[in-house]
Structures are given as structure tokens and as C-alpha cells.
């Protein structure tokens, strides 16, 4: 029997991957669960394992760009021995590829997940002219026949420009990276497919600052991590999500699905682009756990070692533009999530407290939400709840 080898789903924003090292050449015999091929994306790298023992056949090659769900080869379980000479010959001929290298430990993924269903009834079965035209811009359809097809216009401009004389007005071009293209497509999709708007508030961080100041040494000593702002934000968000479950819901067809768990994505900037690893069960874990989780995920993100499982399934996102000095911004939601909380720079500002102008550490909060799911009243109250918790963290203890 022949078993297809398919490109598995690799995370919410990943639609294609590049074939990395082929660890088992075509014609070779593999044991079940042996590593057979590497897939690379800009976010994660993943090794596929043989679903069963047999002789492997590839319909793809190193460097090929494949889509999620594509069949890239098969395992013939009827053949129990590989063609050794072919394998050796191929290996001798093969371009300087790395020999079969062991997968990194964090790449243990469930085997060959079923591919996502093709677009059907949810989007509507009537494939319109507009859909057809919109697909003309899907990059993988643009170059199916690289040998025979002329290089598309975009590649021509990529050729090294002649040296410009000093002072000339030139442009430098480079090809958009895959991750940048994915980000671009998804952001525009969100703007077009959701009814998104942003609500603002401001929060006095004096008490959070005081808490951090009082306990930073004890915390660091006991848990080995620094007490940052993020656990406060995460816990405040969880508390508010419990009050307003719509924020933790998503639209599925005609249904509204309310998540009864609290997985929060934390946006992390890396030099390859923005990624949003997910901290799980935020309601059940401690401040220290949150810090440790974020630290480990951020480290993985910067090293390019995030696995699909690290990125999938968040119910809500927190993004902290304050790290880079942002005073106020309107974050864009990360579907199917319906809201995102933007934190900003904390700065001392004059505010009025009890009819006195005093100096307080202030921060603006921004909540972008999908108005299809969440009404203004809920969204604003959610944000006010977060403000109240952050201004008086003892509410977390009391659960109010």
C-alpha cells in the first residue's frame, strides 16, 4: 500500500514551506517514525517522520516551495527493502547537502496532521470573478514552470543594479521575505474581513511599580526570573476575560465559540519579524510561571526554534509596544481571535488626583476588537476592568 506524505499544518499563519534537507533519499527503506525530510518556514523548521516502514518516494526536491496539504511523496509499505545502489549513486551525485542530521529536540511534532480542508461552504461554494482575480496574486501560482517560463517582472528588478554614481537618486530593492509576505496578507485580510475598532484608556501604574519595587529581589531570588510587567498584564487580562467571555470567543460559521481556557499570545519582535507564541492556561499558573514561559518562548523565537505548537491556538493577544517607546497605537487583531490588548510606554505625567495635580506613572491601553462579536459596552468595560486591576492589583487576590 502507498501512504501519501503530506505537508502538515504548521501554525496559524503558515501557508507554505520550503523543502529543506531530504534526509531519506527516494528509493531508500525507512523504519516507521524515522526522520525523512526537513521542512523550513520563516517561523519554524520541522522534521517529518515516516508514518510507516517502507520504501520512500519523493515528488519534490530540495528548495521546492510547497503548500500545506500538498503531497510531497509516498511510502510504499509493500516494499521492504530499498534499492541500495540507487541510493548510493544518488548520494554520490547529490549537491553538497548536509548529511541526515538529527532534529532538534523541540521539533517533536505530531506526525503528518491531516491537511486543512479546502475552501468550501463556509466561504461559499460560488467561486466568483472577484475570488478568481484575487487569486491571481497568490505567489505560488505565479511560477509553476521555472525552466520554460520567463522570469517574472519582479525578478528582473532583483538583478544587481549597476553601480550608481555618487549623489544619484536610486532605489534599492530586495525581495520580500516569506514572513513579511504572510504578515502583509494577513494584516490586510483582517482589515477587510473583520469589523475592527479600537478603544483606549489610561492606567496609573504606580501600584504595580510599587509592588515590583518591593518584591523584585525576593521574587528573583526565589524563582530565578525578574518580575516584569507582563504577568500583571496577563493576570489582569484573564480576570477581565472571565468577566467578559466574548473577548475570548471566536466566530465559527454561524456559531460563536467561547473558550473556557485562557491561552494568551504574547507578541515578540524578532529580527525575522513579529511572532506571537502562546502562554497556556494563564488562569492556572503563577506570576513566576508566566515570566518563565515568556522568557523561554521569546528565547526560542529569537533563535528561530519555535514549533508550530508554540504558536497555535491563542485566544487573545497582548502586545507591548511600550518596549520600543510607543505612546499610543491601534493594534491589529490576530484572527480567529477577536481582540488584542496594546500596552504602551509608561511615563510620568501630571494627573489630577483628588483635585491635586500630582505626578503619576501613566500608561495608555488600547483594545482593538472585532465588533462583529464584541459590543462597545463589553469592550470598554473589559478595558476598564483591566485598568482597575492594574491600578489596584490587590483585586487579583480578592477576585474582584
Amino acid at each position, binding site marked *: 500500500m502507498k501512504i501519501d506524505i503530506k505537508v502538515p499544518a504548521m501554525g496559524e499563519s503558515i501557508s507554505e514551506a520550503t523543502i529543506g534537507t531530504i534526509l531519506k533519499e527516494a528509493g531508500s527503506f525507512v523504519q516507521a517514525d524515522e526522520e525523512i525530510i526537513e521542512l523550513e518556514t520563516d517561523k519554524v523548521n520541522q522534521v517529518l517522520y515516516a508514518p510507516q516502514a517502507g520504501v520512500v518516494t519523493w515528488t519534490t526536491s530540495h528548495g521546492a516551495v510547497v503548500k500545506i496539504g500538498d503531497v510531497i511523496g509516498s511510502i510504499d509499505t509493500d516494499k521492504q527493502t530499498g534499492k541500495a545502489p540507487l541510493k548510493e549513486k544518488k548520494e554520490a551525485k547529490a549537491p553538497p547537502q548536509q548529511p541526515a542530521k538529527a532534529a532538534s529536540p523541540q521539533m517533536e511534532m505530531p506526525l503528518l496532521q491531516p491537511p486543512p*480542508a*479546502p*475552501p*468550501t*461552504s463556509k*466561504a*461559499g*461554494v*460560488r*467561486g*466568483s*470573478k472577484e475570488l*478568481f*482575480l484575487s*487569486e*491571481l*496574486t*497568490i505567489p505560488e*501560482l*505565479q*511560477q*509553476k*514552470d521555472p525552466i*520554460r*517560463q*520567463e522570469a*517574472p*517582472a*519582479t525578478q528582473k528588478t532583483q538583478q544587481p543594479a549597476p553601480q550608481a554614481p555618487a549623489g544619484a537618486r536610486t532605489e534599492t530593492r530586495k525581495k520580500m521575505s516569506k514572513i513579511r509576505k504572510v504578515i502583509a496578507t494577513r494584516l490586510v485580510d483582517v482589515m477587510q474581513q473583520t469589523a475592527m475598532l479600537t478603544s483606549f484608556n489610561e492606567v496609573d501604574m504606580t501600584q504595580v511599580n510599587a509592588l515590583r519595587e518591593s518584591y523584585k529581589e525576593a521574587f528573583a531570588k526565589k524563582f530565578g526570573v525578574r518580575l516584569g510587567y507582563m504577568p500583571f498584564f496577563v493576570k489582569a487580562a484573564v480576570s477581565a476575560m472571565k468577566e467578559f467571555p466574548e473577548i475570548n470567543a471566536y466566530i465559527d460559521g454561524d456559531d460563536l465559540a467561547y473558550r473556557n481556557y485562557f491561552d494568551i499570545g504574547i507578541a515578540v519582535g524578532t529580527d525575522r519579524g513579529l511572532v506571537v507564541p502562546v502562554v497556556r492556561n494563564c488562569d492556572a499558573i503563577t506570576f513566576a510561571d508566566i515570566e518563565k514561559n515568556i522568557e523561554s518562548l521569546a528565547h526560542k523565537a529569537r533563535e528561530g526554534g519555535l514549533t508550530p505548537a508554540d504558536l497555535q491556538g491563542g485566544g487573545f493577544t497582548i502586545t507591548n509596544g511600550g518596549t520600543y517607546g510607543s505612546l499610543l497605537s491601534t493594534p491589529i487583531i490576530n484572527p480567529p481571535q477577536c481582540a488584542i490588548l496594546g500596552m504602551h510606554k509608561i511615563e510620568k505625567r501630571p494627573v489630577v488626583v483628588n483635585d491635586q495635580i500630582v505626578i503619576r506613572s501613566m500608561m495608555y491601553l488600547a483594545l482593538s476588537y472585532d465588533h462583529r462579536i464584541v459590543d462597545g459596552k463589553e469592550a470598554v468595560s473589559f478595558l476598564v476592568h483591566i485598568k482597575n486591576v492594574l491600578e489596584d492589583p490587590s483585586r487579583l487576590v480578592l477576585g474582584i
Partner: protein
Amino acid sequence: MANYDFQVLVLGSGPGGYVAALRAAELGMKTACVEKMETLGGTCLNVGCIPSKALLQSSESYEFIVERAGEQGIAVKGATFDLDAMMKRKATIVKGLVDGIAMLFKGKKIERLQGTAKFIDPHTVDINGKKVTAENIIIATGSESISLPFLPFDEKRVVSSTGALSLKTVPKKLLVIGAGAIGVELASVYRRLGSKVSIIEMLDTITPAMDAAICKQLQTLLKKQGIEFYLGAKVKSGIINDASVTLSVEYENKPMTMEGDVVLVAVGRRPYTKALDLDKAGMTLSPKGFVPVDANFRTTQPHIYAIGDVIEGPMLAHKASSEGIAAVELIAGHETHLNYMAIPNVIYTHPEVAAVGLTEAEARAAGLDIIIGTSFFRGNGRARCSGETDGFVKVIGEKKSNRLIGMHMIGAHASEMIAEGMLAMDKKATIADIAYACHAHPSLSETIMEAAQAAKGS
């Protein structure tokens, strides 16, 4: 859930309805199909596509023998035709096909309900006094010819396509109002059989759904065959006399009268819904008279679907069939998809016209950067051997993706050749895919390949 008589009830047995009913039965659903006529098959099989093609073939064969057989060294003296025999052949073809559907219905245990369906409530339909309930209902009642207020159809002197397909004698002078597909096809039939034919069209072009270059070529060729065209002409009024009809026409800003012994009114078709009592099921029609549906063929009642000519879009039998299948598969919970850009459109004149995808004007209007390639049949070996050198293929691609976005052709057997363009559109092929696919030689389809090569080079 309530107990319904049927899981799927299809209203209408045309190419949309009967195909939907067959698919529903195949998928194991208890299915019934309502038809007011005595035979199944709707307009297409009984009084549309099929009988017209039968007459087009007979008349074309006759014309070939009389006019063009000589080119190939065949001398036929005194060739005659028998209109009655042609009509009988047509009727036999139609009977064979509609009986075939009846057999299929029987074989698949589809209940055939004869009568006119009227909604009583969203799940109940009255069929000539008999109440039938259904879990899902598919409206596939099709369309009817539009008449002119001053020229009601009598199907003798003033005929719709239905009457034109059953004339007792060949009219000496045939006036055709409307230069759409039906107008030019039936004009061709009677012109070949000896009628003097004039086509009166309100627009400045014939067959406006087609690419402009194709329309121009078709008009030139039909004119050469002897059809007179009055474009941009308005029919103001008409008088039906004993043996003729007189039309008052405004043409080039001057009034004129035209007389013919038969007038074919082919100004379009409108969705046929008036007997349905849609309001009883809580549905209203669009301003143009169509049944409004969503992206999944659902009306405002989610269990009532509508397909084919009663919904907006080109009125094509094969579109209705594909929609019928898609709607049934949705009901059955299957995954399905219908690419509207890959639905071909054919006119069975001689030479034939066929198209799929965007016309050049549509592509430009959509703001696309396009590449165009054209290749003529006169350079094609097979076309020369067949003596069918009129016409050309025009291929339109999108520059950046190199994808095929439109294919247009006029030439012998274009109706068959367009299948290549249809499949290419559906499978999202590029111009290069077509240009490098190995086409049989010698064959007319090489012209498609050459047009694609020309587009690639442009």
C-alpha cells in the same frame, strides 16, 4: 425534526433540476422532482438547446452539400431538403433524451410529480392540489422568453424560440428582433434553408457577452452568408397582418418599416417564478425578478435553494447543472466548489463562437495588466483540409502571474475546443502551460496553443 415526505424536492426538471434530482438520489436522499410539462428536461431539452442544435446541424449539412461540397470535388445536383423530415428528426432526438431522463428517474427512484408547484409554507408545496412537504427545496424553474408588449407571441407569425423551432414552412422573409445567441442561431437555420433574414438589434453590437473582436468577426461572416443587420435599431411598433407582420423601426435616426412573414422575438429571457407564490415561503424577488441567493445558493430560507436561470448570472444550461449538483452536495454536507470563471459560453452559428473567462474589455476594466495572443485558423493545417479557415483564437493572460484569464474563439468546432480553455481556467493554468502542452497534429486545437505562444511572446 418534523417528518417530511422528501429530503429533497426539486421544482423544475430542466438541466438544473433533473441533474440536481439525480445527484440527490445518488447521494441516498429521498428525492422528488416537480414538472408542469408532460416531458422532463425543461426548456433546454424540449424547446431550446437540443432541438435548435438538431436543426442547426440539418440546415448546415444541407448548405454544405449545396454551397461547399463542390470545393472538395463533390458534385451534387438537385439537392433538396424536407423541413418536415428535419422536424421529425429533431423530435426523435428530443424524445430519446427526455425518455432517457425518465428512465434515469425511475432507476434512481426519484418521484416524478406532474403539475405546477406553489408554496403553501416554507416546507410545503401544493402540486395541482396535492400537498407535499420537504426538508430541502431547490427552485429550478428556469426562464421564459420575453415578449414585446405590442407583439405578443402567437407562435405562428410572432414566434419565440419555441415557435421558431417548430415552423411548418420556411418563411420567405424572417425578421429577428435581438442579436443574442438565440437570435443569430435561429437566423442561421432559416437563412440556410432559404429565408431572407434581417436581424434588428438595439445595441451597437451583436452577441454582447462575447469579446468585441469576436463579435466583429462573427458579424462580418454572418453578413457574408447573407444575413442583414440593423444595429442600434429600435422596434417601435408592429402590426400583425393575415400573412405577414409589419414592424416600425427607428434605424439611424430615421423611421422605416420592415415586413416579414415571421418575426422571431429573441430579446432575452426572464426568470420564471410567477406561479410559485414565493411570498408564502417568505421570499421576495430581486428588482430584476431573480430569486436572491447567497454564496451557497441559499435563499432567505436556509433550506430553500435556487439555481439556474432563476438566479442572477448567465442563463446557461451547463451552469444550471453545475449549480444543481453543488446545491445538492451542500445539502448532503459534502465539500464542493463551482468556479464561475470557468463556465464556457457557446454560440452555435457557423462558424461557432465559444468563450470562457474574461473578455479583453472586462480584463481592462478590472485594471489587470494583460497579455494577448491571437492565432488564425487560416494558418492551421487541419482547418485548411476541412475547408474551415474562417476565424481565430484569442487568448488573454494576466502579465504578472502569467495565468490564463480568458479564451475566445470563433471557428468550426469552437464549442468542442473551448473545453481546453475551460479546464485551463478551472485548474488555474498559465499561458505557458497551454503554450507548451503537446497538441495533436494536425488539429484545430493547435491554434489555441499558437495563440498562447503568441501571448507569451507579447
